[in-house]
Structure formats: C-alpha cells, structure tokens
C-alpha cells in the first residue's frame, strides 16, 4: 500500500490554521476534519500509551509546543503512519487518510492545553536528585544505575504532572510487559529482579545489582510475580511536597539527550 505523506500535508496545512475554529464543531462524522473526530481516533489508537489527554503513561507525553521527533507536520504524519523503529511506537497502516489528518490535528491541539512548566526550583531539584539516591537506579547522561529507565532527556518526554505522579505512585506507570519477579530455586536460594524474557519453560531476569539470571521453571521451587509493583519506592512522605516539585522542575530541565 502506498501513502503519500506530503500529499496529506498539503491538504492539512491550511486546516491546521483553523484549529481553534474547529473546536466548537458537532460530533464526528466519517471524514470530518475536526479536533473531536481526532480525539475519537486518539482514544482508540493512541491513548493507551500516550494517556487519555496526551499526558503520557507508558509512552511519552504529547503536550508540548514542539514534539521532539515531530517538529514538522510531515514528520508527525510519518511517525503516526510508519511508527518509530526500535521503540514501542507501532505503525498505523490501518488508519485512513482522514483519520490520520484528524488525529494529527488533535495531537497538535494538545500543545495549547497543557502548561509544561511546573512549580519548583530546578537548582534545588538537582540536589534532591543526588541526595535521594535517584542516580543509584537511573542513568542520567551516561552515568548512574541500571535498574530504572534512563532519564537523559526526560524533560522532552514527560510533563510535571506525570513526574509528580510517578514519584508519588511509581507502580501506576509500568511499561507493558514490565514485571518484578522473585524466583526461589529448589535449594532455597531466592533471586529478585526484573523479568527480561520468559517462555513456557524458562525465565530470565536481572537483579538490582545488574546480575543476569536464567532458570528452567522446572528447577524452581517458587516463582512469584508482582505485576503492579515497581522497584521504585514512593517518595510520598520521604520527600516533602516542595522537594518533589523541585525534583520535577529539575527533571523538566533535562531536555537534551547527550
């Protein structure tokens, strides 16, 4: 199937200008180019990873005036249609041209809705980052721990509300397939870690110290799964509200992946 993104862009360009005018239009009809129609497509195809309002869940937030990988509308179309290789962003060859236009319009409308600058002092947040030991589990610009996600350039992907929620309730933003497991061998040795891969007969995990373990399931006495648990502790109570804001403000300044 061929698809000409530049052609769609040519169609879309004049309409992008009238985003505000479209906001008040009636519920979506097939092919109707409105933010509402785009919101429906977004709910069905995108919200699972990008959040109901594009605030980001397992996938990045889209509430930025300028999106990191989709600086132009042409790039936005390409990313939605073809996906991003090497990431969890899939292709959407099933979208019609009209749906593609609608959803792109909706994504662009998100930028206006959210204030990407949160409260807090980024300079204090830098100190909180180190004092709270974030770097023991997270890598920032090439140094740090391996257990958690790499936070280089996190300010390009996340918004302050998301970061606050992740610090207070880390288990609510686990990526698909993320699982903490605890394996107990027949001789009683217990290994806890993140599941790296699993099949019917065997499982592999990485412990907090970074060691790799592989087991035949038949050699295990017990295998416990903790599907909603994050290895990251909640910082509610450990850090003050102001410190959490500061930390969030600091992370939002990390807008360059070195």
């Amino acid at each position, binding site marked *: 199937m061929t698809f000409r993104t530049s052609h769609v862009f040519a169609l879309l360009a004049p309409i992008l200008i009238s985003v505000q005018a479209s906001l008040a239009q009636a519920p979506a009809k097939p092919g109707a180019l409105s933010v509402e129609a785009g919101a429906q497509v977004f*709910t*069905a195809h995108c919200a699972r990873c990008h959040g109901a309002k594009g605030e980001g869940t397992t996938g990045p937030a889209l509430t930025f005036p300028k999106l990191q990988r989709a600086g132009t509308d042409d790039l936005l179309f390409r990313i939605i249609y073809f996906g991003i290789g090497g990431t969890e962003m899939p292709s959407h060859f099933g979208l019609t041209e009209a749906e593609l236009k609608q959803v792109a319009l909706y994504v662009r409308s998100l930028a206006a809705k959210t204030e990407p600058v949160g409260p807090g002092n980024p300079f204090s947040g830098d100190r909180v980052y180190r004092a709270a030991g974030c770097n023991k589990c997270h890598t920032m610009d090439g140094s740090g721990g391996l257990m958690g996600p790499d936070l280089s350039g996190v300010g390009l992907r996340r918004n302050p509300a998301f970061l606050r929620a992740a610090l207070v309730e880390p288990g609510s933003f686990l990526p698909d397939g993320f699982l903490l497991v605890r394996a107990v061998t027949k001789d009683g040795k217990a290994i806890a870690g993140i599941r790296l891969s699993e099949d019917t007969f065997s499982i592999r995990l990485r412990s907090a110290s970074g060691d790799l373990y592989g087991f035949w399931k038949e050699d295990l006495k017990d295998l416990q799964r903790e599907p909603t648990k994050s290895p990251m502790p909640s910082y509610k109570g450990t850090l003050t509200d102001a410190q959490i804001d500061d930390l969030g403000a600091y992370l939002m300044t990390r807008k360059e992946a070195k």
Partner: protein
Amino acid sequence: MRLGRSFQCAVPALFAFAAACSAQVTFERIRAAEKEPHNWLTYSGDYSGRRHSALKQIDVTNVAKLRPAWMFQMDLNHKLETSPIVVNGVMYVSEPPSNVTALDARTGQPYWRYRRNIPQGVRACCGQVNRGVAVLGDRVFVGTIDAHLVSLDAHTGRVRWDVTVENFLAGYSITAAPLVVKDKVIIGVSGGEFGVIGFLDAYDAATGRRVWRRYSIPGNGMPEQKTWAGESWGQGSAATWMTGSYDPVLNLIYWGTGNPAPNSNGDDRAGDNLYSDCLLAIDADTSGLRWHYQFTPHDVWSWDAAQVPVLVDAPFRGKPRKLIVTPNRNGFYYVLDRSNGEFLLAEPFVKQTWAERIDEKGRPVVKADAIPSAAGAKVYPSPEGATNWHSPAFSPATNLLYTAVREAGAVFYKLPATYRLGMLFSGGSWHPIQGEEARGAVRALQLEDGKMKWEFPLHSPPWAGMLSTAGGLVFGGTDEGHFFALDAASGKLLWRFLSGGRITANPVTYMVDGKQQVAIASGQSLVVFSLE
C-alpha cells in the same frame, strides 16, 4: 508421478497398499488418506480436518529421542504459516508470499522452486502469508497473494495454468491452501478487512476453467440479503480465507466464513449479516448451499469462523451422528449435525464475557455492554479470538479435540467507517487490557460436551496448530519458538525443542525411508524431526 531417481517406491514394504506407490495422487487416494499415513496428501492430512496421523513409530515411549533431521531456510522475510504436503518422499511446501518448493524429504534439498513475481499494491491485512498447496495427479496448486490460482507441474514446477480469481486492487488475496475435491480445485479468498465480497470458487483441475462460484453474501433477490441494512452487503466481506473440510459420502464441502465489514462498527449494517461468521455446507458438484450455521450474528468483534472444521462420526447423547465440531474464535466450542446443520451444543472453552449464553437454537444472547463504543468496551476474547486459523486436531483413540487457545481480552473501540475500494475498512480499533498478561494453553476438549479433559498452559497466546498421532502424541508450538509433544491422554509434556523462531504454523507428519518425520515451520525455516 515420477519424481527423480531417489523415488524408489520403497514405502510399500511397510504399507502394503498398491495405491501408495501409484504414479498419481488421485481423488480416491485423498479420500482414503488415512490408509497411507506415510504421506500427507491434503492440507489437514485427510478430508475430515482432524489433522491426525495413524503413524506410531514416534510414540510416548520414545518421543524424548526426537531430534532435528534437517532444516530448510526460506529466502524471503515473511511470516511462515505454511503446512507442507508430502507424496512418496517429495515434500511440496509453499513459501511466502506465493512461492512453492519441492523438497526431497529425505535430505531436505530442493528438486525445484517456483518463484512468483508479486505486483505492487497487494493488500494483506496480516502479512503476505501462504498456508500451503494442494496436489492432484501430476499437478500442484497454489493460491497467490495477488489473488490468482496457479497450477504447477509436479515434476518441474513449471506453470501449467494461472487464472485470476479476483482483482487484488479491490482488496482480494489468497492465503489459504486450496482443497482438491474430485476433479476440482476449491479455493477461498482473503480480504475481510477491505470490504470485499466473499466467495468460494471451484476450478477444473486440468484446465483452470472456473466451474462454479458460491458467494458468501446473498445475491440480489435472495431473502437473506435482507440481513444487511440497505446496501451494506455490497462491502460485507465474509471472506473464505481458510481451507475447509469435505465429506465424500454426503458430497458436502464445509467451509467457514469471516467477519462482516466493517469489523467493529455495525451501525450501517443492521441485521444478522449472513453469511458472515458462518459454517457453509456446499454441494461439491452444484455449489448449492445445503445449510448454514452462523456462530456470531451481526459480529462487531472480528470473530471470523474461518478455521478448519472437524468431521467426526460419533454418538451424541446416545444416538450415532455425523458431527461437525469447531472451537470458534468467539470462545465457544460447537457441535452440529453435519448432514443438516442442526445445532447440538455450544460450550465455552475460554473466558468469554460477550454472551449471556447460547440459546437452544444456537443463537447467542449478547450482553449490551460488550458492543464496541467510542469510549471502549472491555470484552473477552480479543479480536484475535479464543483460537484462530491454526488448526485443531482430533484423535479417534482418545476421542479428544486438541485446540491451541488464546486467553486474552481486549478493549474494543468503534470509529466511523467509510468504504473506499481496496482500502482498510475496519470501523474501529482495539488494544490489549492494561496490566493483564495474555496467556495461552493447549486444551483437550471432550468431543460430546466440550468439557476440558486437561490443559497444558503456555506462556503466550499461541498461533501454532495441533497434530495428533496414533503414537499417543499431540504436537504443538509456541510464540517463543518451542516445538513440543504432549501425551495425548494426559497432557503431560514429553519432549520439547527450542527452534529459535516464532512458530505460527501447523505441524504435519509422514514417513520417508522407513522413518517417521514431523515437520513444523518456525521463524524463516522449516524444521524436520525424526528419532535419532
């Protein structure tokens, strides 16, 4: 057929059937395929769709010694869903998108290869796959992704005839293996995601002339067309994208049909949408529709009924019946009388949340909150179904039906849908349920009541079919690449092998040089096993 010097007619030493060494694969041989289990003559092994072999050299006592004998690497990077045909030591295997290779099953090396140039712009919802070939006489038949049916010379791989079944630009393609019945080649079409009009075709095997076409959507003037609001039947799909079964005594072809289009939005197609999601019983000579049974009337979940139905003669509630049984994508196992289509039983074999029950006439009582919506409706099973095109198997020894099941739900979304020729026509989307890991299993269902006798849990929902053998074994595969054998009576794991590639195909078994082999496609390879 004469197929090179290596074919020495050695097999009758083990199986004293003159037919086994005959030069031609005849309709009579396919009809009696269970009498020559060293061959695998048709898609499901025989016409009954049981995917069961009478071979027992490999059995529960020695299967632990099963080892790879050879591998055949395919040269195009597409998903493999192929199921080979084997005739007297020659294996005919289709390779995606629409190629065929004849292999020496003894050594794994090719006799010939047929390579087809695929035009730009073919439509395929789910990969340019091919599930196998059919054989008759000295011909090999393959359906192509650009919706042609091709007859190849079994000695050379040269094209004998090549006919256009339909226009691929309108969304038609062929992914299923053809079924030879008498002197005809029966072929169905894919395209259910593109708003095609489904049909089943019969072609004269010798000439390629079309003998009949049976549409799976009622034509103008037929009262059943009223099961589609307005003109919605005109892009209603009901594709015939898998291979059916055949009862030579009743002379009926049993063929499943796919989803109505658009898949997830039924607003513009009010009504039952016949003959989508149906089993059709079609007279092999006249194409007359003897009966139909619809599993999911007015489907909005994409639960095609295309999978291979299984024909079994067995008592049902004390009375001998000609049964047809099928675990359906909608989560229910069905038993029908195949002579007249009478509904006998529906029993869930996975978690399902869309139907209150199936009533005494075989019609589901659908829950209102299971209908896809703009906000999303959480329903089990997922659109990929409780099972899918991968074959079940039935063993007459255990009287159990083995099916590779998918335990997964989904959130179904409805979106507006506009039909445009050759474009995807889905009317919605879906995603897995957050925080839930989908699972799989091999389940052994009791033929008569559909109750589970045993299960063997799988980490992921499988796309690999089943094979049962008289050696008391059931073979299956996993998404992570394991090929395995279970005890057919108990479900106990007896052997496994990590092939290193995802398995999305059906296994077959046959015998060459006195050794039983088991073949399965995995990753980009065909892997063949025998006892060490």
